């Protein structure tokens, strides 16, 4: 599937989003904006105890409240939620409940306030079961069992445990080392905290279920719902046009979609189920916390000879995702072994949040490498350059790899050689520091589909299943279609995110939309072009193979002045329909986008406050198809990393097992005042496997950000903070040691 580079007319330009007007005028309609006639409002009741058997639910008072239409719970709505838990069966309401925040009941009423009132009238009798909050405690033989299989979350395939990976000869690698270092790094549970609270609207029409969802993937959501409700795919419609962010916690269908569907069924009315902000923080999931123990063998010159990683990750009460740690991915490690134990505890679920397995362990491993460089008296930029990855698992080549150039460009831009100094060497109260780290994310090909309908006036409808979660995917698909067709962008109308209308899409997660669906859009455009050339050939009196289409003109390749406008060529063709389903594969190559991040900080050693004074993010994402949103995503990923580095942590009170800060103010997401200017540099090279040479953009920018900041703080203070978030008190304490 490798392809050669082309000249582009639309790809890569600074084109504003095609739906910018809707988004700035309030005319972009998100799921929560939809109102249906006769619609009820629903709210969810959550467990107040961390582990308990429900021995009774008395909903009679709630049901008597005027306006209440239905109360559902485990006793009357035992619906499985397959994608909610992969190692022990999960339902939309579970008995026993396994964490403070586990859903217990849902109420539908004529308005949301009545539904809220009703929640307080539901009486739940719990029989408490011993609980465990700490993953290391949970692994002890006498710990309370959360899953019937035990607390090490053993499942199949991607959900096996422990997650083990190794290559080379670890013992030999450590023997070859001049020095061996060992240390432990800790990261905490942080929340996706997207602005749009979860909301789902469900309605039934003669046995067909329609769900207006706030989902990152309408096709996957449909598959989930159809499976768990026992419906054919054709009897489920999932619609999501505009989506207010998710960052991995709105993949597929979730329990609230199911609850809305059940409530709609029993009341025979459409139901809108809304989460509160607190529901959103505790009822779904955040990024899994981790404790990472590294053993690293190095030569005197810093060359890594072996790495061993033993880690536990806290995936909470249910296994929704892998719980893996992949921060070692960006380094050349000849001998490697990792053992990651995803562990169940009676806490909020830890699952996907932007580049799920990365920022935690990029923080751990890149901090540790930075520290080893310090111990060996090596400049960090030399350490990272020397050990940067060149072959996947020390074996396979990459489809393209310009990590070296990322490091060179970034260190030049920030002025590393002039600005770097020995850690903690600066005088004064406010200390300057500079740091860097490497990051990226896998780039893979996969199943995509697209349909293009061309009208008799030459304008076209592009139908794609993608939901635009903020990445600009809708615009990117239009840009790819316009480029591939040879017509202008304003001739393309995109219809997206509706399973009854649009073809399959993988879902906007794992940075897969452009690489999966992009190929299909190109192929669908080629399908249309063939049809255009077939109808234009007799008009231009040449063979179809001799024709090309560019700038809305069909012309003879050998004699471009012989041409007719596209609109004339297809005027009598009725409607042309181009379609494609593509599923390319890699053979003996591996794909990855790469990045090198650099930051300068000023640490106030009296207050522990850190100010980021400069940030440079250099990315190898292949050709950038849609430049402005790509830059925006890099900036935004860095800002999310800043939150993770400095402030964000969902804190669970040890005594009550209750999350005590499930909101923006107390979990402290960054504001305008904390966001530095992020200088974005794309090191652009054509990747022969990506659509129009592009790799992935969305997930990578958060991966290196946390470690970059942590390393800059070390350079300023000479003190290594090994546990996130790096709050002022930790900096002050470290200074005093």
């Amino acid at each position: 599937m490798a392809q050669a580079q082309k000249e582009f007319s639309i790809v890569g330009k600074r084109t504003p989003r095609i739906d910018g007007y809707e988004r700035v005028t309030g005319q972009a309609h998100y799921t929560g904006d939809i109102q249906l006639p006769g619609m009820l409002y629903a709210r969810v009741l959550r467990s107040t105890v961390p582990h308990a058997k429900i021995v009774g639910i008395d909903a009679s008072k709630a049901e008597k409240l005027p306006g209440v239409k239905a109360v559902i719970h485990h006793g009357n709505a035992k619906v499985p939620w397959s994608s909610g838990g992969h190692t022990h069966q999960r339902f939309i309401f579970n008995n026993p409940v396994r964490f403070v925040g586990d859903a217990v009941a849902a109420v539908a009423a004529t308005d949301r306030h009545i539904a809220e009132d009703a929640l307080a009238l539901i009486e739940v009798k719990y029989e408490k079961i011993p609980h465990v909050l700490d993953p290391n405690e949970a692994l002890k033989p006498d710990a309370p069992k959360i899953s019937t299989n035990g607390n090490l979350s053993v499942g199949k395939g991607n959900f096996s445990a422990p997650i083990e990976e190794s290559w080379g000869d670890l013992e030999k690698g450590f023997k070859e080392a001049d020095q061996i270092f060992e240390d432990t790094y800790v990261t905490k549970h942080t929340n996706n905290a997207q602005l749009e609270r979860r909301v789902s609207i469900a309605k039934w029409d003669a046995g067909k279920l329609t769900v207006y969802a706030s989902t990152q993937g309408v096709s996957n959501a449909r598959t989930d719902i159809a499976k768990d409700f026992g419906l054919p795919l054709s009897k489920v419609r999932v619609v999501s046009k505009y989506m207010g962010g998710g960052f991995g916690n709105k993949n597929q269908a979730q329990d609230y979609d199911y609850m809305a569907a059940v409530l709609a069924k029993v009341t025979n009315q459409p139901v809108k189920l809304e989460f509160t902000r607190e529901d959103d923080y505790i009822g779904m999931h955040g990024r899994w916390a981790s404790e990472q123990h590294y053993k690293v063998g190095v030569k005197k010159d810093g060359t890594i000879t072996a790495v061993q990683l033993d880690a536990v990750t806290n995936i909470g009460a249910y296994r929704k995702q892998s719980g893996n740690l992949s921060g070692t991915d960006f380094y050349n490690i000849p001998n490697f072994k990792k053992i990651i134990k995803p562990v169940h505890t009676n806490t909020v679920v830890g699952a996907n949040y932007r580049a799920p397995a990365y920022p935690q362990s990029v923080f751990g491993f890149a901090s540790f490498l930075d520290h080893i460089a310090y111990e060996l008296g090596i400049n960090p930029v030399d350490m990272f350059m020397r050990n940067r990855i060149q072959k996947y698992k020390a074996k396979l080549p990459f489809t393209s790899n310009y990590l070296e150039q990322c490091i060179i460009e970034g260190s030049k831009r920030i002025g590393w050689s002039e600005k770097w100094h020995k850690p903690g060497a600066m005088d004064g109260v406010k200390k300057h520091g500079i740091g860097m780290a490497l990051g990226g994310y896998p780039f893979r090909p996969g199943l995509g589909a697209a349909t293009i309908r061309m009208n008799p006036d030459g304008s076209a409808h592009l139908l794609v299943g993608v939901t635009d979660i903020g990445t600009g995917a809708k615009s990117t698909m239009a840009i790819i279609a316009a480029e591939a067709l040879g017509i202008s962008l304003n001739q393309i109308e995109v219809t997206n995110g509706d399973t009854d209308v649009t073809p399959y899409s993988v879902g906007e997660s794992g940075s897969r939309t452009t690489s999966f669906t992009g190929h299909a859009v190109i192929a669908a455009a080629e399908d249309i072009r063939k049809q255009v050339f077939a109808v234009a050939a007799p008009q231009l009196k040449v063979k179809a193979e001799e024709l090309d289409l560019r700038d809305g003109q069909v012309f003879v390749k050998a004699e471009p002045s012989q041409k007719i406008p596209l609109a004339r060529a297809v005027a009598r063709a009725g409607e042309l329909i181009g379609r494609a389903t593509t599923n390319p594969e890699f053979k003996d190559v591996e794909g990855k986008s790469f990045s090198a991040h650099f930051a300068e900080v000023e640490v106030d050693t009296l207050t522990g406050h850190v100010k980021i004074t400069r940030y440079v993010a250099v990315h190898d994402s292949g050709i950038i198809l849609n430049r402005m949103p790509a830059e925006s995503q890099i900036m935004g990923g860095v800002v999310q990393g800043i939150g993770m580095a400095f402030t964000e942590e969902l804190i669970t009170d040890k005594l009550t097992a209750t999350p005590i800060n499930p909101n923006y103010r107390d979990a402290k997401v960054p504001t305008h005042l904390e966001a530095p200017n992020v200088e974005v540099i794309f090191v652009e090279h054509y990747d022969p496997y990506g659509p129009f040479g592009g790799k992935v953009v969305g997930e990578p920018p958060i991966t290196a950000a946390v470690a970059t900041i942590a390393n800059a703080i070390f350079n300023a203070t000479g003190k290594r903070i090994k546990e996130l978030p790096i709050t002022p008190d930790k900096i002050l304490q470290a200074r005093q040691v």
Partner: protein
Amino acid sequence: MADEKRGAKLSRRSFLKGLSGGAIGTAVISTGLVKSDPAEAYFPETTGAARGKTPISLKVNGKTYRVQAEHRETLAEVLRDQLGLTGTKIGCDRGECGACTVIINGRNMYSCSQLAVWMGGKEILTIEGLAKGDKLDPVQEAFIEHDGPQCGFCTSGQIMSGKALLMKNSKPNEGQVRRALSGNLCRCGNYNREVAAVLAAAKR
């Protein structure tokens, strides 16, 4: 078995309701703190569908609307649910995120933290009221050109805070823009774009 129920804490909405109820307010807070059943302690007479509604005259984007709202309904809810002005978003419903920002009598305010019944006689401007016919407001135009929205859910609020700033200070510097918008969270982290857009709008 109070700890087995949901209550035991004051929600922002209940707190607002308490304040609007005058003398009941103090009783609400104290009973709330001793963990009694919130549904009974707060408003024993006003739960369920039997509650009364108050007629309100709302002046929004230059038009006057007559609506009926319960005392506990926020301006954000009435704008969205009754007037269909869904450009105003609700991100947290507790005065933290700013997605619901509208301009009331010339000031940017969180419409989730204003009760609809307080709005009589006030001039409310929402995102839908910014454009003059087909002509977008300079802040809106600049948001398109500078890629202001990523997911777009905070965008209306960011624009309204930017607009409120420019109404008071037509030539702000970057620091002033950041401070003026600092009550508007953007989880996509698109802060640099939003600031750049407001600065660009000021130059038009």
